[in-house]
């Protein structure tokens, strides 16, 4: 064991872990579930929902596991009657300011709050009181914001500031009326928002949803097809959500090695072309001033003939290839191979060199 390693006990079980880890990280790695709402692996631990509280021997109050680092020989209980009571009260408090309209909520079936309410068997009736009654905000083309469903976990504001670094939204106001919003509560626009939808991807409830996919199917009705984004060379993975053979929306693949669930506007919302009536499905060849559909063989033969003609006329050294940094490595390699071998030129370059 190195000096960075130590041993702790969770629910009576000895677990070896790293010094810098938090209790939650150690527990998750060991397969011990601790409920959370404000935790997202992509973000700095926040400690806002307080559901991840655990008991630590020798400490007279429960500690949030997401922000508490492990210390040597720590003895932790993730469940107890007192912890359950507090968790139930916390969920109940959240539900006391929540519409609880799961029947028609976009997020039903993929809602962390719904799952926890079910698991802990609570509703919002115990602490009935004032509830937010704010209008749905659809002041932009991509994101629907239903403030009444917001549980103030801060995940949307943190992903916007910590990961995207766009700073579009932040918590505004104080006390019971604190909520995530844009500066001066202006509508989202290209002036203040990138429309990457990262906030939607991390929202644990139905407060932030993809506007284009609303009403087009429940999460559990969708076939999730993992794919790699074709817009650039980064290689982000995501799931195409398919219902009745139509792509309805895109959701994050949090296990994707490259992007860990993060996406930009193109990956998340640029899928309209798939079912577009104007989508070009075959090569087009210009004849007499207008385009005509052609087969791939026809098109490639035409291009090859034109290249040969140019090389014969000017020589291979007058030709070259220039590829995009948005192509994959393999595509870039193929281009360079093709220019050197097929054309016979060393004039190969890539825009990333600029």
């Amino acid at each position: 064991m190195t000096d960075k390693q130590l041993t702790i006990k969770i629910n009576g079980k000895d677990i070896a872990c790293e010094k810098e880890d938090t209790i939650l990280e150690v527990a998750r790695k060991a397969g011990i579930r601790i409920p959370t709402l404000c935790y997202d692996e992509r973000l700095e631990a926040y400690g806002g929902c307080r559901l991840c509280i655990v008991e630590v021997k020798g400490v007279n109050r429960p500690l949030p596991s997401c922000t508490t680092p492990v210390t040597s020989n720590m003895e932790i209980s993730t469940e107890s009657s007192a912890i359950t009571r507090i968790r139930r009260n916390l969920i109940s408090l959240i539900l006391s300011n929540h519409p609880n309209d799961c029947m028609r909520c976009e997020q039903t079936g993929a809602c962390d709050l719904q799952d926890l309410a079910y698991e802990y068997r609570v509703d919002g009736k115990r602490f009935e009181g004032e509830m937010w009654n704010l209008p749905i905000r659809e002041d932009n083309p991509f994101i629907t914001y239903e403030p009444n469903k917001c549980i103030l976990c801060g995940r949307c504001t943190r992903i916007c500031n910590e990961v995207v670094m766009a700073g579009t939204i932040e918590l505004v106001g104080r006390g019971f009326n604190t909520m995530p919003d844009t500066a001066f509560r202006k509508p989202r626009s290209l002036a203040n928002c990138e429309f990457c939808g990262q906030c939607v991807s991390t929202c644990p409830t139905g407060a932030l949803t993809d506007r284009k996919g609303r009403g087009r199917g429940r999460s559990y009705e969708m076939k999730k097809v993992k794919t790699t984004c074709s817009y650039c060379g980064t290689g982000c993975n995501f799931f195409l959500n398919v219902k009745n053979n139509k792509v309805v929306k895109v959701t994050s693949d949090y296990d994707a090695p490259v992007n860990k669930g993060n996406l930009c506007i193109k990956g998340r919302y640029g899928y309209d072309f798939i079912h577009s009536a104007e989508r070009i499905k075959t090569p087009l060849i210009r004849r007499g001033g207008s385009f005509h559909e052609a087969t791939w063989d026809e098109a490639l033969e035409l291009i090859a003939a034109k290249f040969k003609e140019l090389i014969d006329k000017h020589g291979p050294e007058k030709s070259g290839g220039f590829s995009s940094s948005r192509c994959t490595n393999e595509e870039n390699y193929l281009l360079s191979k093709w220019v050197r071998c097929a054309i016979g030129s060393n004039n190969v370059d890539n825009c990333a060199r600029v």
Partner: protein
Amino acid sequence: MTATKTKKGETNAKKSAIKELTIRVCVGTGGLAAGSSDVIDAFYKELDVHGLKAHVEKKCVNKTGCRGFCAKDVLVDVILEGILSTYQFIKPEMVSRIVGEHILNGNPVEEWLVGPDYHTFHDKQTKILLKQCGQIDPEDIDAYLGIGGYEGARKALSLTPFEVIEEVKASGLRGRGGAGFLTGLKWELCSMSKGTPKYIICNADEGDPGAFMDRSVIEGNPHSVLEGMIIGGYAIGSTYGYIYIRAEYPLAIERLEIAIRQAAEKGFLGKNIFNSGFDFDIKIKQGAGAFICGEETALIASIEGKRGMPRSKPPFPVNKGLWGRPTVINNVETLANLPSIVTQGASWYASIGSEKSKGTKVFALTGKIKNSGLIEVPMGISLKEIIYDIGGGMEKNRKLKAVQTGGPSGGCIPASHINMPVDYESLISIGSMMGSGGMVVMDDATCMVDMSKFFLSFTQHESCGKCVPCRVGTKRMLEILTRITEGKGREGDIELLIELGTDIKLSSLCGLGMSAPNPVLSTINFFRDEYEAHIKDGICPAHVCKALRQYIVSAELCKMCGKCFRVCPSGAIMWEPKKKAVIDKLKCIKCGACFEACPFKSIM
């Protein structure tokens, strides 16, 4: 009323040949509001007319004043040939008579002089921090140097940082911001922490309703705070300090700016201060008035330009504070104690106070008390001494019911515990806390449910919204309290308040949430019958909750004065001289005018 005399002796200045004359006028926030700048102008003008040369010295006293009487501003000291006379309630038009009768003819204007209560207020106090407030000109560094200012910093810099820390540890000084952590220990932890640069922050974000200790210290003696920061900075190895002060304190900020400028000119701030090789600079950062920014991690976030919200500890600021660097955050009062500790020694300081709480504490004494104001008392003094000796007893000689310490985070101490000593441990043991030093005295006309509702509405309003228990939990508690005061309390509400309050204390992220339920829980603990009376009997025993007033005149209490009859706007009160009043319920519009008018609380 006899003339106020100095303790030494007699008045009767000579009519001719005035050798020495000092006039001190309060120019604290309170004094200025009462018109002290006009009083100063009037003195200048009047003295000019008579060709008198006088040194009109500025004097710092704020709203309640270091001298203690908020209601008696503008207070003016006239020191003629070494004999001090203090006037109260002075207005510009009164100046001419003071100059004519007192200064020129040596006969103080008796009817305007302060009374004996002015002195009894001070006798039980032990002044370390407030000693110079109101004595020296806060805008003149030479005045501070004249009373031995910056000697503490000079001495500290001649010692090793380790020796300074040991001295502060030995003094037993504990953080005056509320939690009472040992200052020397905090410094030691920071000095041992790896990472540079290190920072020292002065927390001047005083936010408790009714608290103004820090403001008074800064307004009255800003250099003592700077000196404390220099000592602290040197001890922990920090060359840069921040003063985080709320923007609502413009006068304090102005005086700090002046003080920093003057200290830099003297070589007490900047490079190689006191020729010791140690560099130290101070920057003022103004807060935007969020209560939560008094919490140290929220304060750090605010200085860093983020939304003022606390984060979980650990890591503690001494390890990972401002910009991720080791940082010590000390309260204004803590820092202002340091010069005296260094110059007079740890053992001197440790000799004041109780076993575990050393030194003095400044309180903002307010509420239903005769002499409200700012007081400085040794730790361990009893509540009784504070209320009856310094405070002069209850207003209108009503009955003491409870004392709230620690502001909205503190708890209520019932009158039965009046002999308890005021120190960190005792206050916590009874469910309250020291807090920053608010002390609200309540009489039997205070409804405890209404009072805890007031404090909870403050904390709910100031919750940062980060964690669920504080944001939603305190809201629900507030709603329950509100319905109780409106006569709509339900069976089980008290139990629900206790359960919710306990869980909020256990599960909140920061000190605000952890202490927000204290006023409710402590009043339920000591005054549960009052809650029950509201819920079960529909009665507010203190007759405060409007919805529970019955508008019946108690035949037992009515003294037949007829005041209610005279104020009733709807002619609902039947009364004749020497007859008890009766309210006609059909005509009564429940406006509450009779209620306010009745001196005997006879309207139920």
